[in-house]
């Protein structure tokens, strides 16, 4: 895999993270389901997944950048596994509504595991880490630049919505209203 192809793959990874963050917003605003603290932590770790690809696009692919995303994905998988286990007993309806039979935290666990597998698979291609002499577009080209700013904008939007939801104190265990809007 060439450096240019790896950068394109990283940009696509950023679009995948953006899709996850937009899906979370869709559940929050369309279904009016406020995210619980563990749900927020999983969102934060999905956003943290994006830092590695941003560095790969700007400075070129490096194993350390992929390692950062791997660490974020493992932490996210731990948090979502805990939430799955909290609702694993028979008769427990789970937290929030289900999408295609799975709750959002189950989808989050699947997403984090998929990220771990995909990042490990991409790291198998050593040629991306060698300077192949190709002239790369500055900061990855338009596709990558849009992806980076989209993910940053969605993360910034989460700053605002989380502040509205939790206010300046501890976030409610089972939030039903926006603390700063009531």
């Amino acid at each position, binding site marked *: 895999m060439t450096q240019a192809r790896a950068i394109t793959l990283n940009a696509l990874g950023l679009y995948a993270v953006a899709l996850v963050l937009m899906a979370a917003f869709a559940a929050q605003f369309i279904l009016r389901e406020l995210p619980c603290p563990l749900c927020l932590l999983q969102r934060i770790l999905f956003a*943290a997944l994006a830092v590695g690809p941003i*560095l790969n696009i700007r400075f070129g692919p490096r194993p350390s950048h992929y390692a950062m995303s791997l660490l974020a994905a493992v932490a996210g998988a731990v948090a979502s596994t805990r939430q799955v286990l909290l*609702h694993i007993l028979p008769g427990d309806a789970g937290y929030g509504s289900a999408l295609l039979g799975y709750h959002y935290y189950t989808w989050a666990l699947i997403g984090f595991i998929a990220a771990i597998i995909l990042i490990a698979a991409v790291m198998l291609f050593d040629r991306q880490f060698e300077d192949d002499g190709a002239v790369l577009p500055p900061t990855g080209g338009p596709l990558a630049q849009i992806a980076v700013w989209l993910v*940053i904008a969605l993360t910034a939007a989460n700053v605002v919505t*989380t502040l509205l939801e939790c206010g300046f104190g501890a976030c409610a*265990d089972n939030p039903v209203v926006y603390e700063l809007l009531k």
Partner: protein
Amino acid sequence: MEFTLLFLAVAIVMLVAWRGSRPLALGLFAAVLIACVATYLHHATDTLKLSF
């Protein structure tokens, strides 16, 4: 409040990764990840009734 700060910190790390220096981005990312793990452990040691 801690979740708002964590989102803000991740947004800042992204901006530093995109515009700032690489070592600073790596250091900030490590700090944010440690803060995330600490937040998780804080909640994981609470007595739980629901998903939090």
